[in-house]
Each structure stands twice: as structure tokens, then as C-alpha cells.
């Protein structure tokens, strides 16, 4: 098994206060039905996390603080939408989303199989957002999308970085036996 890491990827869960994992099997549902489960799952996660924020001070200077219910729903929904878009449609594995809540941060992981055809372009995009200035890329992307967005908006990850001050990381796990490539996307938000 070969592993490739991009960005700020953290896997260690020691010291986490709360942990929840949800598994979705998109091949069981139509695309429209699968899409609807994104919002429902994100809503559930946002409501769940909100209970831990009640009465807690807000220390982050993020433009949209994670304590607002919309923030957790937005991040969870974008991660699930991306997983649905890039999931290998032949895969029989679950798309898994989990969050770990710490004293000072909230970390999401989303894991799914990706079609190897999409991996090269995805890695190019990830290198671009890791090495570039996210704010510039975000607004350049908005301007470019106004002319042509046939290949998708590309705004989801950039909005997490710019509007929610999220740190992002990615792990590609490549099997030696011609099996699908597994991608885990990590999003870390300061509380």
C-alpha cells in the first residue's frame, strides 16, 4: 500500500472528546436520492455538534465561526457533495464521514474510493490550492467561473479555507493490486 499526503493532514484522535461516524452507500440510491442524503446528514451532524457548543466561548477569529450551526452544516455538506461527485461509481464501499471534537478544534474526515481517471486532475488542483494564496484563488475562480464552469465550480474547498479559516489535508491510499484508490479528506477548524 502506497500512501500520499497533501496539505495539513492529521489522523491522530488521541484526546478527542466526542466522535461520530456516518456511512453512506450511494450505489443503493439514485443520484437525486443520494444528493438529498448529503443535506440530511450534514443537518444531523450540525445539530449534534451544536449541543457541545452551547455556553462555550468563541475563541476563533474565522469570518464565519464554527459555533454557528450553519458553519458545521456547510463543511459537512460540502465534504459529502465532493465525496459523491468524486466517488468511484463501481465502488461497493461506504462513503464515510466522521468528526472528532477536541477542546480547541473540530476535525472532519471523509473517506471514499476515487476513480483513478480523476486522481491526476484532483492532485493538480490540490497542489494549486496548497501552494497558492487561497483568497486570490477563490476570487480568481469566481471570475473564471462566470465565463466557464463546465468542469465544476471548484469553490467548495476554497470557501472552507477563506470563509471558515479551515485547514485542509488529503491522504491517497493506492493499493498494489489494482484496487480503487481511497481518498481521505481532512478539515480542521479551530473552536
Amino acid at each position, binding site marked *: 500500500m502506497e500512501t500520499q499526503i497533501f496539505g495539513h493532514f492529521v489522523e491522530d484522535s488521541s484526546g478527542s472528546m466526542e466522535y461520530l461516524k456516518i456511512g453512506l452507500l450511494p450505489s443503493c440510491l439514485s443520484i437525486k436520492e443520494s444528493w438529498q442524503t448529503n443535506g440530511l446528514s450534514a443537518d444531523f451532524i450540525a445539530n449534534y455538534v451544536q449541543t457541545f457548543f452551547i455556553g462555550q466561548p468563541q475563541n476563533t477569529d474565522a469570518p464565519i465561526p464554527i459555533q454557528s450551526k450553519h458553519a458545521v452544516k456547510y463543511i459537512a455538506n460540502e465534504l459529502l457533495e465532493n465525496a459523491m461527485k468524486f466517488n468511484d461509481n463501481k465502488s461497493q464501499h461506504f462513503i464515510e464521514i466522521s468528526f472528532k471534537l477536541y477542546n480547541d478544534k473540530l476535525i472532519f474526515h471523509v473517506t471514499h474510493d476515487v476513480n483513478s481517471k480523476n486522481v491526476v486532475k484532483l492532485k493538480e488542483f490540490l497542489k494549486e490550492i496548497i501552494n497558492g494564496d487561497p483568497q486570490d484563488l477563490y476570487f480568481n475562480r469566481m471570475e473564471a467561473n462566470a465565463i466557464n464552469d463546465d468542469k465544476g*465550480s471548484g469553490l467548495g474547498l476554497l470557501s472552507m479555507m477563506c470563509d471558515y479559516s479551515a485547514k485542509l489535508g488529503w491522504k491517497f491510499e493506492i493499493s498494489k493490486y489494482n484496487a480503487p484508490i481511497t481518498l481521505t479528506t481532512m478539515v480542521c477548524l479551530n473552536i
Partner: protein
Amino acid sequence: MEIKTDEYSVTYDSDIIVCKGSLLLNSSAEYAPILNLFNSVAEKQIQPLTLDVRNLEFLNSSGINTFTKFIVNVRKKQVLQLIAIGYGEIPWQVRFLKNLQRLMPSLVLKLE
């Protein structure tokens, strides 16, 4: 002029476009009717146009993309005065509208 479903509505009446509910559509293709409504209003509008998102509860990144495409379109024409209304106490609405204003500095923001 109106687009209405169980989850959201986009309504144009008396120089105001009002967006309500949760916009969680999949890609530009599903957002095309909303963008078409925005652009067709802008095409005919002479009076200043108001975009009211106070009762918009949720917007995914494809939805953000739809609004930014509209804003860039209006900015390029340099004719229409645009006003955006949101709630100052809702952090995502404030950030979203300020991002739109960065794209179009002449956009007038009203944060209630």
C-alpha cells in the same frame, strides 16, 4: 416571476428578488433556472434592483457560484445599481454578501 419548491423559493416582484429556504442543488445545471431568472430580471431592470437573502437559510458552494456569476454579469454591464440585503447577525450572510461586494464594489450592502 417565481421559482418555488418545497425547499426554496426565488421570487421577483417590484424591483426586489427575494431568496428563501435552503439551496442545496447539484451543480450549475440544476441552478440554471435560478441564474436565468436573475439574468433575465437584470436584462429588463431599469430601477435599482434589490437582492434580499435575509430568509435564505442555506447555500452550498454551487449556489455561491450561481450568485457570483450573476454579480459578475451585472458588473460587466455597468448599468444596473444592485442592492443586497441580509441580516448582520447571521455570520454566513455577512461574509457571503461582503464577498459579492468584493466582486462588485458598487454593490450596496444593507445588513439589518
